[in-house]
Structures are given as structure tokens and as C-alpha cells.
């Protein structure tokens, strides 16, 4: 059995976990993050991608609203390349409750969220698809955030400060001696090897899986798993985030991302942390709700549906975490105080928008335990440095401005080597993925990352397969690179099948119209032109 020693083990490679890893590393505390899948495979990539202004919470949760607006400003500053500063609108429809409108305006004012009313005529001019039932429109500093980019940027920054992480490494048990944490036992899911990791502190940041982790200490954390389903449209229907101005509910938010728009969200309690299959009735419901904000929603093509699990924390005792500077929005559970287990802390609940704040609170707690006095700097220090202007210019010259900008945002400081490769061998500048404009050189670069174990990991890193064709062409085009990386023809075929099946899960709930035709085209390509055997593929 392999043995590793560190100061802190962080369980969970979502936004909160990587935020903690970065904060710990910046304060000089040795830490290892363990993730059972790929980074961001859970809730952090399965949401609408909204960077909250806090306006959505202005009425029901003043504290959360205030945290959101503060973090909104910070994240826009430290992670500019992951953010599109679209702004957001709150749209009050003719039928909506005027009482709520007043409460909302007061709430925003109290939380310090700037609100500007947009004259209706201008609103319809700026967002032509907006429902003509709109009566008043208010602008707030909402923005959109790319969860994948944000996570990778945190990890890369943490690595620079000495932080380490392992993906596909699943915690099997907590290593406890007389209720003292000594570390964890984990399994490397790729090799099957069991690893013993000695640490002073274990941070449970496993999101929907955190109840399972806490239970390994013999104590329960009361978590609710709430499934939120979302739809992806293949057009940018709106240029701003569009919210409905009423008590936040289902299907009342449109979030534009690059060339697509996400409509969210539903809310349904589930039992399993990975129950993320969307049902057709969820889709119907979302479309019905979405019609209130966009009357002609049915004319638009739905690319796919997906769902994430919100890890909601319900405290058994409201006084339990009062006075610790933690809002109702998220909670830090000190298992020594609560259960007598020393060295274990759980961070539960929360929002992606406040991931940094949650990380700061946890790291403060850890630092106090380890007598480290270094202050938190994550609110000031950007996640990465801007690549130099000459790299940008070179990239634009070689692959065109639109593709270059997308690539630079994905790669940042790593872009220089990819640009150099294209300059040397122009054919490497050809697009593997024409929807997301991912070049061959970028795919080759991503495949060199030791954390890329599959085509599906590659998808998360490069956005290959996330566009309109949903993997049909780009999967095929990555064939030679996959074979070089993964070794055999059988393995390459298996990677094809896994990726296309994963994409298929999101397509089946919206299988009509052009997406259905696209699916027939994909079947024609793989089963006929490339002669994949239908029977063999049934695993």
C-alpha cells in the first residue's frame, strides 16, 4: 500500500474544494485534494453558470444577497477570463405581484446591489425575444461564469503554490484513532491501488457526496439532495441574464453562454448524489415556464438537457453555527465541537458564486488549528496573469480572432506553447471541433495533461463535443490523437462509445426537430460510414 503524507486532505474537486486547495497553498499549508472523478464533474459544472449579483436572494435571504454582491465583485476581478460580464435583468411581468417588486427593490438597496431601471422600449430593442408581457425591467450586475474554467484556474494557481491533487481517487474511509483524524484511505480508480494518506486535518467539501463522507466518521450530516434540470438552446437568445422578478422559482432564468443559452431550473428532491438523468416531463415543464419570459421559445432548437444536484444543508439546530461568520447560505461544521471528532471539518451548502468565501472560511479554520497566521489573499490576487499582447496577436493571426480569444480564455498562460506549435506546423491550427473552435494543437496539449484519462475528461478541458454536433464530428476527428494517448484501437473505440453515450443521455430528453435529424446523421456516420457494429456497442 502506497503511503503519502501531507498536512491537509481536501475531499472533493468542485469549486469549493479547489478554492480551499488554492487558499491553503497560498498560505503555505501543504495540502492534497482528492477527487473521485474528474474535476468539476459534479455540481460545479451542472448549473446554469450564473455569477449571482445577489438580487435573486434580495427578498428571502439578505445575508446571502450581501455575500453574493461582495463575491460577485471579487470574482469578476480575480477571474476575469472565466466571466462574461453580461449584466442581468429582472423582468416584472404584467401579472406579477407588485408587493414583491417593492420588497425586492428595498432588499437590493439594503444589500448594496445597484439596480437601474431600463425603459421598456429600450429593453425590447436590446433583447428582442423578451416577452411582450414585460411591464418593468431592472438591470443588476449579474454575470455568467464558466465553471470549468474557474476550476482549472484555481487548480493551476494552487499548483504554483505547491498544492497537489489527484483525480479518479476515491476516499474509501477516514483514518481515525480514538476520534482523532490521522488521514484517509483512498483508492486510485485507474490502477485499483489503495493509498494511505496521513494528514492532520481532513476537509470534507464533497458537495452532494458530503453526507457519505461525514458518515465515515460515524456521524450524520443532514444533507438534502436537490436535483435541478436545465435546457441548453443552440443560440444566444439573450445577451443578458434574464430573471423573472418574483419569488425565485422553476424555469425563470435564462443565462447566455458564448453561443448557447441555458434555461433553468427545476427543483426536485432525490436520494442519490449522481441522479442526474433528466426526464421528458422536466423538459416540458421548463419549456412551459420559460414561455413566460420568451414567448417564442418553441421556435428554438434545444441541444440537450442536463441536471445537477444541489447539496442543501439543513441544520438540525439553528444556533449551532451562529456567531461563526457563516451565513445560512452555507455552513461550516466543526466535527470536534459537534461530534467530538478532532481534525474533521465539513463545508456544506453554498453557491458557486460564494465558493471563494467558503474556501476562505474553511482555510481560516484550518489555519487556526495549525497555528498558521498568514492572511487570506484570494480576494485580491488574480487567478492568473494576462498572457502578453504578442501571444494574443500571434494567436489571432494564426487561427482568427474568434477562435484565438476562446482558446486564450481556456489556456491563458499555457497558450504560448500551443501557438508556437501551430506556427511551426500550420496544419495543427485546423479545428478538431468546429462548434467550439478547438484546434488540433490545443487537443494535443490537453492530452499531455496527466489528469486527462479519457475522451470525456478531454471534453471538460477543451469543450470538445459540447457544441451543436454534440461530439459527432470532433470525436471522429480526435481519433489519431486518442489512439496515440490511450494505446490501442479497442480502447479508442471504447472512448468513442463512452463519449457518445454520455452525450446521448443529454439528447434523449429533447429528441425532436433538428436535434433528432442530427442524431440520425450521427447514427448514419458511425453505424454506416464508419461501420461500427450496433451489437458490439451494447455493453
Amino acid at each position, binding site marked *: 500500500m502506497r503511503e503519502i503524507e501531507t498536512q491537509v486532505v481536501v475531499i472533493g474537486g468542485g469549486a469549493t474544494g479547489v478554492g480551499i486547495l488554492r487558499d491553503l497553498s497560498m498560505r503555505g499549508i501543504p495540502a492534497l485534494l482528492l477527487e473521485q472523478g474528474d474535476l468539476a464533474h459534479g455540481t460545479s459544472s451542472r448549473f446554469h453558470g450564473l455569477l449571482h449579483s445577489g438580487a435573486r436572494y434580495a427578498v428571502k435571504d439578505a445575508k446571502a444577497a450581501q455575500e453574493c454582491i461582495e463575491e460577485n465583485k471579487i470574482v469578476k476581478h480575480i477571474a476575469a477570463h472565466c466571466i462574461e460580464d453580461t449584466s442581468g435583468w429582472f423582468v416584472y411581468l404584467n401579472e406579477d405581484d407588485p408587493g414583491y417588486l417593492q420588497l425586492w427593490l428595498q432588499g437590493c438597496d439594503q444589500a448594496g446591489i445597484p439596480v437601474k431601471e431600463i425603459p421598456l422600449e429600450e429593453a425590447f430593442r436590446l433583447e428582442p425575444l423578451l416577452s411582450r408581457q414585460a411591464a418593468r425591467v431592472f438591470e443588476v450586475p449579474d454575470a455568467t461564469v464558466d465553471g470549468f474554467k474557474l476550476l482549472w484556474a484555481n487548480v493551476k494557481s494552487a499548483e504554483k503554490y505547491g498544492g497537489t491533487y489527484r483525480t479518479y481517487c476515491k476516499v474509501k474511509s477516514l483514518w481515525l484513532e480514538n476520534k482523532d483524524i490521522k488521514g484517509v484511505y483512498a483508492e486510485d480508480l485507474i490502477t485499483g491501488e489503495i493509498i494511505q494518506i496521513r494528514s492532520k486535518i481532513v476537509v470534507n467539501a464533497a458537495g452532494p457526496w458530503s453526507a457519505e463522507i461525514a458518515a465515515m466518521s460515524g456521524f450524520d450530516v443532514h444533507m438534502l439532495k436537490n436535483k435541478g434540470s436545465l435546457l441548453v438552446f443552440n443560440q444566444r437568445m439573450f445577451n443578458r441574464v434574464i430573471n423573472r422578478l418574483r419569488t425565485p422559482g422553476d424555469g425563470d432564468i435564462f443565462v447566455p453562454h458564448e453561443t448557447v443559452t441555458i434555461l433553468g431550473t427545476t427543483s426536485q428532491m432525490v436520494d442519490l448524489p449522481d441522479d442526474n438523468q433528466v426526464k421528458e416531463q422536466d423538459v416540458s415543464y421548463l419549456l412551459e415556464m420559460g414561455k413566460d419570459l420568451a414567448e417564442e421559445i418553441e421556435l428554438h432548437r434545444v441541444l440537450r438537457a442536463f441536471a445537477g444536484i444541489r447539496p442543501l444543508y439543513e441544520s438540525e439546530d439553528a444556533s449551532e453555527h451562529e456567531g461563526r461568520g457563516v451565513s445560512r447560505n452555507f455552513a461550516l461544521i466543526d466535527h470536534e465541537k459537534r461530534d467530538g471528532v478532532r481534525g474533521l471539518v465539513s463545508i456544506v451548502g453554498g453557491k458557486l458564486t460564494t465558493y471563494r468565501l467558503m474556501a476562505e472560511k474553511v482555510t481560516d479554520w484550518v489555519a487556526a488549528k495549525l497555528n498558521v497566521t498568514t492572511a487570506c489573499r484570494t480576494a485580491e490576487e488574480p487567478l492568473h496573469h494576462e498572457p502578453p499582447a504578442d501571444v494574443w496577436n500571434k494567436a489571432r493571426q494564426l487561427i482568427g480572432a474568434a477562435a484565438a480569444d476562446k482558446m486564450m480564455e481556456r489556456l491563458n498562460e499555457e497558450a504560448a506553447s500551443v501557438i508556437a506549435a501551430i506556427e511551426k506546423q500550420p496544419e495543427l491550427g485546423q479545428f478538431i471541433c468546429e462548434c467550439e473552435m478547438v484546434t488540433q494543437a490545443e487537443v494535443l496539449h490537453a492530452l499531455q495533461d496527466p489528469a486527462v484519462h479519457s475522451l470525456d475528461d478531454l471534453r471538460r478541458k477543451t469543450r470538445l463535443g459540447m457544441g451543436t454536433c454534440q461530439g459527432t464530428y470532433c470525436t471522429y476527428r480526435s481519433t489519431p490523437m486518442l489512439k496515440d494517448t490511450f494505446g490501442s484501437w479497442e480502447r479508442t473505440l471504447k472512448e468513442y462509445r463512452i463519449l457518445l453515450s454520455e452525450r446521448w443521455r443529454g439528447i434523449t430528453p429533447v429528441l*425532436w426537430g433538428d436535434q433528432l435529424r442530427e442524431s440520425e446523421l450521427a447514427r*448514419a456516420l458511425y453505424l454506416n*460510414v464508419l461501420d461500427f457494429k*450496433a451489437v458490439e456497442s451494447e455493453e
Partner: protein
Amino acid sequence: MWDAIVVGGGLAGWTAGIRAAQRGKKVLIVTEGVGTLYYFSGIFDYGDVAGLRHFPKHPYSLFDAETIDRGKQFIKELCPEYIENNKSRHALTVLGTVRQGDLMPRSMVLPDRQEQGIFVLLVPEGLKDFFPEIVVSNMAREFPGWQVKVKRVHAEILGEWERIGKSASGIDYAAIWRSKEGQNLLAQEIETIKREQQGAGSKSERIAVVLPSLVSEYFDASRTKIYGKDYSLPVIEMSSFIPSPHGRYFAEYLKHQFTDLGGELMIGARAAALTGEPVSDKQPKSCQEIIVHSMGKVLHLKAKKFILATGGLLGGGIKVGIERKSIHEDVFDLPLFVPQEWSASRFFAPQPFAQIGVETDNCLRPLDTNQGQVIWDNVHVVGRMLAHWDPWTQRCGGGVSVTSGCAAAEII
């Protein structure tokens, strides 16, 4: 007044139109676009005909063996380079794997795996979506007795594209190989290969050149005269990737065949609706004319028979609306068989939605899905518009389209 109007210019539509024209009928083909021939591998898949005929309601069950055979004869007469696969004959996919070829061009036929020899893969520089290393390793695995070598071929005309890293598609290269310069270049390359191999002492061994994007089947003496060069070594062509050069030239060839026979063609025209009167309550209706939108005009076109060949889901003849609240056939608003279960959870599994289509009697006339009665007396449904089959998992796309197209033409 035409003897028949064919709606749809895909494989089944062209087949019906040409066969009817061969029989001396006055035919019009109305087509919106080019159909899905641009995804044609170059091979007609027939699948397990005998087995599929026992599938309940499968289109093959509408035909006797003779009719299916007539379809094959039609293709072989139309394209003399096509041969029927009585033995186990195979062709290469673009990945270098080996696929079955039921009715395929002679030039695609692979040698026996038991034999020995040398394949020389000619790799056109910058050919898009073509992976020589993958092809070589797959061919080497499929043909253990054969050596696989690679030779790159560089077409001067694409020099500038190469310099800036722009790729050329299979269609670009096929056009080059059909030109005089391209033919000469290929001939030279192949002669060089021959000399090199003989110099290397492999005189006695069998040598075959393998080439993607060579389209040599659709030889039309009256128009495309250039093809016909003899090479000093046998050349095996690979089946097409998309967009398919085989599909492109096959479509062009079909068009020439059709118009040479006096067939009339209306491209960029969309058949939208029809008018027709029921003869009586009990009898099937008879269609008098269809309404066609073409170049901003609305035309009423009359014919004795109408053939619906609009290509199903992929071709666009069946429209499935949001949440599947509306599913309809676009021209005659025919009743459709719609499976209860819509999709299978595995992508590569047989998909229930693929079975959607029009149910017909043995004369390919549309049936009412409830009563089982013929709705239109003079409308015949062909190809992918037929219900109860899946061309991709049953591997019979070409077979059903050719057979039904031919059969419909025989009734006109």
C-alpha cells in the same frame, strides 16, 4: 400532365424516376435539395434480406425475391462497375477497417485475407478527416499476410492550401483525380511505386495501391470523358467519408441518366400540399395534383401517379415538432406509424424512432394506421419514408431504397 411526379431527389427518388423514364414514362422529379446522397459510402447495403423479410412489416416483406433482385439488376445496368456480392466481398472504410459490401464497385473489392502481398496506401497531402497511421495499423491487423506501406502524394494545385494549413476534402481530391492533370499525377505516382517495389525485390509479390477519394464508378461517356486512364498497378479505392465524393458524383451521374432519358427535373422546389377528391366514401382517394413552391411561384402540377421519396427523418420528409406534440408527413399529410417507446438508452442500439414512417400495402400505397385501408390510390411511398426499418442497425439502407424505388416505377 405527367405519368408520374416523384417528390424527393435522394436514392429512392432517383431510382424511381430513372426506372420509370426507362419504361418510357413521362416523369418529373421535384426536389428541394440534393437528398442525403452526400453521406453515401459508395456501397449499397442490402443486409440480411432473407432474415429481414421475416421481420413483421419490414419493407422487404412487401416484395418478393424477384423484385429485390430486379433492383440489383437495375443498379448493375446503370453502373456497370458495380458487382453483386455472392461471395464474401469486402471494402475498406475510411478508417482502414473492413466492411461488408453487398453491391459495390469493383474497384473497392479487397483481396482475399489469406493471400499475401503489399498494400501501398497513397495519402493525399492535407486530406481532411483522413488518418493514415490509423488506416495503416487497422489494415495491418485485418490483413496479417500483407505488408502495408505509405506513400504521400502531393498535388501541386493545392500547394498554397498546404502552406497555410488548410485541408482539402475528399470532394476536392476526387475532383483532382478526375482531371487530366490529376490522372497523370496518379499514373506517375503509381508507376514510381511499381518501380520502387520491383527494385526492392518484391517482383513476384502482389502489389495493390490503396487510395481514398478516388471515384471511378460513374463513368458517363457523353459527359465525363476524362476518366479511363489505366494504371500500372491495381488500385483499390476506399469507401467514402462525408461529405461523400461518391455521393456527389453518383448524384450527378443519376441526374444525367434521368435527363438523358427525357426526365424533367425541378430543383429547389418544395412540394407543400396536394389536392385530390375521394372517388367515394368507401374507395381510396385519387390525387390529382400537388402544389409546389418554386422560385417564389406556386405551381399546381398534375400527374397520374405520385411517388413520395422525401427521405424520412433525416431527409426532412417527416417533421417532428417540439416535445413531439406534432409529428407529420410534410407533403400529403399521410398517417405515420409512430413507435410508443421513442429512444433506446444506448446510442449505438437500434433506436425505436428509426421505425417511424408510412405503412403501405404491397403496392406501396399509404395505409390508414388504424383501419388498414388504402388512403390514396395513386400515391406510392418509397425509401426512408417507409415504416418499420432502421437502415443503420439493419444495414439495408441502399437495398430498401433501390428495391422500393424500382418497384414503384414498375407500377407507373
